[in-house]
């Protein structure tokens, strides 16, 4: 394993030190429990917005803390969900009296830890609404499984809910909007290479020199199937087809198209993928009204990408376009 780190056990803390050193004007970082909070939190009267999850997905979530997006983020160990004390601390720090929304990716660990945190916060008189994201169509959903994983839609929900919260929406309204975003978004990812977790030092799975893994998760979970690598146009079909069929998206839909890099893939390849995504979307009669291209929800050094399509409505567009000023996503501010 070769990484720019000091020691496997210090990865998360050292990266937080970097965040603190880089953004003292925007972020407050506490270490025990580990929480990244926007400098001016709590914003009185505004619904507080927090998220969190295992580290290794940067810029998510800490990089999305700031005006227009998250009020705080709880970083867990690499690929391990954070703990309830972090989430309770964050909820207290951002509660401006209007309640707090927890945006939670649907993983057993994240869900159970956020559940405990919500119970504790309730005990301290903080009103909490939870928005669960589960947009990964690579996973079959059923009552008898852990259900679908939360992936790309999480980034979009954090931005759109952030815009709504800034806009003075109520706790219920912000949570409802977040759930609508999740309900209208679908994602699927693929990998050219596994990722190497600094703690284990080992590749998350084995892949042949000419193979790709389709349907991977963001923690190095292997996917639905593997195949010989084809051209970008074929990879895009592999991801777009299940996404389009699942919602389903239909001709005339307005969408946001999000091509996300897994951390080790150069931007030039993401733009090549975007060209294919745009072509396929057009063939299906979709209008791409907004797009996002780059590394936003990553899996350490994994090479690969994920595609997320979100069916838009006017309210989503308005809050997507609203000013945002975070280390990881910034415009109009």
């Amino acid at each position, binding site marked *: 394993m070769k990484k720019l780190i000091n020691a496997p056990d210090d990865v998360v803390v050292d990266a937080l030190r970097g965040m603190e050193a880089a953004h003292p004007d925007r972020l407050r970082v506490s270490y025990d429990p580990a929480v990244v909070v926007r400098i001016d939190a709590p914003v009185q009267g505004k619904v507080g917005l927090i998220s969190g999850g295992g580290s290794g997905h940067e810029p998510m979530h800490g990089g999305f803390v700031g005006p227009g997006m998250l009020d705080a983020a709880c970083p867990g160990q690499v*690929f*391990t*969900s954070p703990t309830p004390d972090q989430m309770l601390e964050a909820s207290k720090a951002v509660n401006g009296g209007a309640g707090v929304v927890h945006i939670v990716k649907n993983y057993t660990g994240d869900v*159970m830890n956020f559940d405990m945190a919500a119970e504790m916060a309730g005990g301290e008189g903080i009103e909490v609404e939870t928005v669960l994201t589960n947009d990964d169509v690579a996973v079959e959903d059923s009552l008898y499984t*852990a259900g679908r994983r939360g992936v790309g839609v999480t980034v979009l929900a954090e931005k759109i809910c952030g815009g709504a919260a800034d806009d003075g929406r109520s706790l219920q309204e912000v949570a409802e909007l977040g759930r609508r975003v999740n309900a209208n978004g679908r994602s699927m990812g693929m990998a050219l290479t596994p990722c190497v*977790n600094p703690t284990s030092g080992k590749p998350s799975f084995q892949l042949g020199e000419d193979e790709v893994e389709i349907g991977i998760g963001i923690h190095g*979970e*292997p996917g639905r199937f593997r195949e010989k690598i084809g051209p970008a146009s074929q990879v895009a079909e592999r991801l777009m087809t299940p996404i389009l069929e699942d919602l389903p998206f239909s001709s005339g839909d307005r969408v946001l198209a999000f091509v996300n890099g897994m951390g080790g893939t150069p931007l030039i390849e993401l733009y090549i993928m975007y060209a294919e995504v745009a072509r396929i979307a057009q063939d299906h009669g979709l209008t791409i009204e907004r797009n996002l291209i780059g590394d936003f929800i990553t899996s350490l050094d994994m090479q690969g990408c994920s595609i997320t399509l979100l069916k838009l409505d006017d309210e989503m567009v308005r809050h997507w376009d609203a000013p945002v000023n975070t280390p990881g996503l910034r415009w109009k501010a």
Partner: protein
Amino acid sequence: MAITRDTTVDWMERFAVAMTEHRQELVALDTAIGDGDHGTNMDRGMGRALEKLRAGSPDDPGAVLKTVAMALVSSVGGAAGPLYGTLLLQMGTALAGRPEVDREAFAAAWRKGLEGVQARGKAQPGDKTMVDALIPAVEALEASADLDEGLRAAVKGAEQGMHATIPLLARKGRASYLGERSQDHQDPGATSTYYLFKAAGEALAG
């Protein structure tokens, strides 16, 4: 012989040692059907728990388990943190205030802990989780006449439950993402649960 504060602390220390010794084994099991962190998480958590025990010096078995539970909840993360936290918190609450704990009370506490785990995680028997190691162990403890026999039976039950997870198809937790690919692998959480009972057998038997 009954369970005391000191034997409970000894139990937790032995469990901590087991989590360090078997860290790699649990990581390997979790890498096969999960994300490879179970051993690291449990080892980190029990390390933190021992610190808290030394700092706090709780004065009865229930208080010891509560202290460990809180340490796990706030340091393990993942699925195992809330699950082991809930398990031991429920047990500690059930044993609150008793300086000495006999088989019957101990078995009842395990039952409460098991219920807590199932309430938290919604796992059914056969879902390929730690629940599959817990159930046979708790039932064995409930069914036996005295503590020593009960502990021996519980350890055996946990071990069998752990092995029984191998052919199962995972229906909860990360492993469930693999569908059929989750079969023919032993569940990491059931394995750490077996070590919890094994440590109990070593520390609590007269």
